[in-house]
């Protein structure tokens, strides 16, 4: 198979994917190989574990250790995390994707998404909401209490709801949300609303009393990013089947762990190509500046890898009020991404571009040739643990990741 044929095949696999929400369960029950004392994190691996982690990731690890009851204080958490007895691994190695710090521990409930085209499954946690939350490294008592409510209140109700109502087509929701002004990475207001519309009557039917169901609906409504984690699992379920496709030069994964940015390329399998993560250029909440920002963090860049998020900014002019720039620039970002992709989505269409499909299938060769790097919409975490989100903006991956991958492609296929 030639490179061109392999890339066309990959584009077909991506376009035919049918990511579907099929249920929820505890991570320890459904993530294969997730043994006790394993903590998953966003991005590529940390070669030296705890030593390499930035502030918000460390904070989130401590929070997960407290939540699991493996430690009872911050000091004990730091000691255990640094001891070498915790197995730290990327979410992506266990079929999952996690926003920001991306921490998943065995007791946490996770969404289960299945690609109906290939049968592959992916997982993501339930989005905790805004403010002081674990994914930004917060681990105060209130954060842990909220995680417990997710596990003991929200999870059983949503699990039963999905069992009764059946599966939800996530591709349909994302496609519709793009028509309604979302780009489904940093703006998920429409997608979250559409999800609530589907779930609401079924939640009320299974709720033991009115109040429990109402609280679940209020929580979902209070968090515009409730859909984000579902979208991330859907994007991963879409892309995972191309990983390992011989001769294929398309990017299958992009992810950040707050220290390094990593990519995986379809034709090179599970090997990561990493370089130091960049600082994000964006708009900061009052009282914060770029000096407070942690380097780029989170698995949510799987959105751009699948052709939405920054690649679909033309569909979401309102996003610039959150990440900076003008509506015209939002359109330009999308148009420029056609330069580095091999095709277009046949489902994710952009009204203002006359319903052109979003740029899809990032070709490592085109990135290196043009020097044009994927544009990513993302949140900005404070570099200190526990403070939370301090802004949002645009960032690009380091070119070095793509240059390393290009060398490896030649070594493997054209030595």
């Amino acid at each position, binding site marked *: 198979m030639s*490179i061109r044929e392999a890339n066309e095949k990959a584009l077909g696999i991506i376009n035919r994917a049918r990511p579907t929400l099929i249920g929820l369960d505890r991570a320890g029950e459904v993530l294969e190989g997730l043994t006790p004392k394993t903590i998953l994190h966003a991005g590529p691996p940390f070669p030296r574990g705890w030593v390499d982690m930035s502030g918000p990731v460390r904070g989130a690890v401590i929070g997960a250790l407290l939540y699991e009851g493996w430690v009872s204080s911050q000091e004990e958490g730091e000691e255990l995390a640094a001891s070498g007895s915790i197995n730290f691994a990327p979410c992506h190695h266990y079929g999952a994707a996690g926003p920001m710090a991306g921490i998943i521990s065995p007791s946490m409930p996770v969404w289960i998404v299945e690609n109906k085209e290939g049968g592959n499954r992916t997982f993501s946690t339930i989005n905790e909401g805004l403010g002081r939350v674990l994914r930004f490294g917060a681990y105060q008592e209130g954060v842990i209490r909220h995680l417990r409510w997710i596990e003991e209140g929200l999870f059983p109700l949503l699990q039963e709801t999905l069992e009764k109502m059946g599966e939800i087509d996530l591709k349909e929701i994302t496609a519709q949300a793009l028509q309604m002004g979302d780009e489904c990475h940093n703006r998920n207001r429409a997608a979250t609303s559409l999800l609530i519309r589907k779930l609401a009557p079924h939640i009320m039917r299974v709720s033991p009393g009115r109040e429990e169901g109402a609280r679940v609906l209020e929580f979902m409504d209070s968090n515009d990013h409730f859909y984000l984690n579902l979208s991330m699992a859907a994007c991963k379920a879409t892309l995972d089947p191309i990983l390992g496709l011989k001769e294929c030069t398309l990017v299958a994964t992009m992810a950040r762990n707050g220290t390094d940015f990593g990519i995986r390329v379809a034709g090179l399998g599970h090997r990561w190509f990493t370089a130091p993560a960049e600082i994000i250029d964006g708009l900061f909440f009052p009282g914060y500046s770029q000096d407070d920002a942690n380097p780029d963090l989170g698995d949510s860049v799987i959105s751009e890898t699948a052709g939405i998020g920054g690649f679909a900014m033309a569909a979401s002019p309102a996003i610039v009020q959150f990440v900076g720039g003008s509506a015209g620039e939002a359109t330009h970002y999308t148009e420029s991404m056609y330069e580095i992709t091999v095709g277009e989505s046949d489902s994710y269409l952009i009204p203002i571009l006359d319903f052109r499909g979003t740029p899809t299938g990032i070709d490592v*060769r085109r990135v*290196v*040739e043009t020097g044009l790097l994927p544009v990513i919409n993302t949140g900005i975490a404070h570099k200190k643990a526990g403070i939370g989100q301090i802004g949002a903006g645009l960032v690009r991956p380091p070119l070095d990741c793509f*240059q390393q991958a*290009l060398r490896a*492609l030649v070594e493997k*296929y*054209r030595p």
Partner: protein
Amino acid sequence: MEKPVQRLLQEDLRVINLGLEVFAHSLQEKKVEVVPVNWSPPAGGDQEMQELLRRLED
């Protein structure tokens, strides 16, 4: 015999400008029609990357 380049210079010029826009400015000042083309050398001129790209052509 008249060389082609001499004939070219006797006609109205329409210029395609590759890369840096500054080259077009002096022509534009003389009311010469210039079509800018956004161009830069492949891989920013990095010869190692250019060779790798050549080997990975379709």
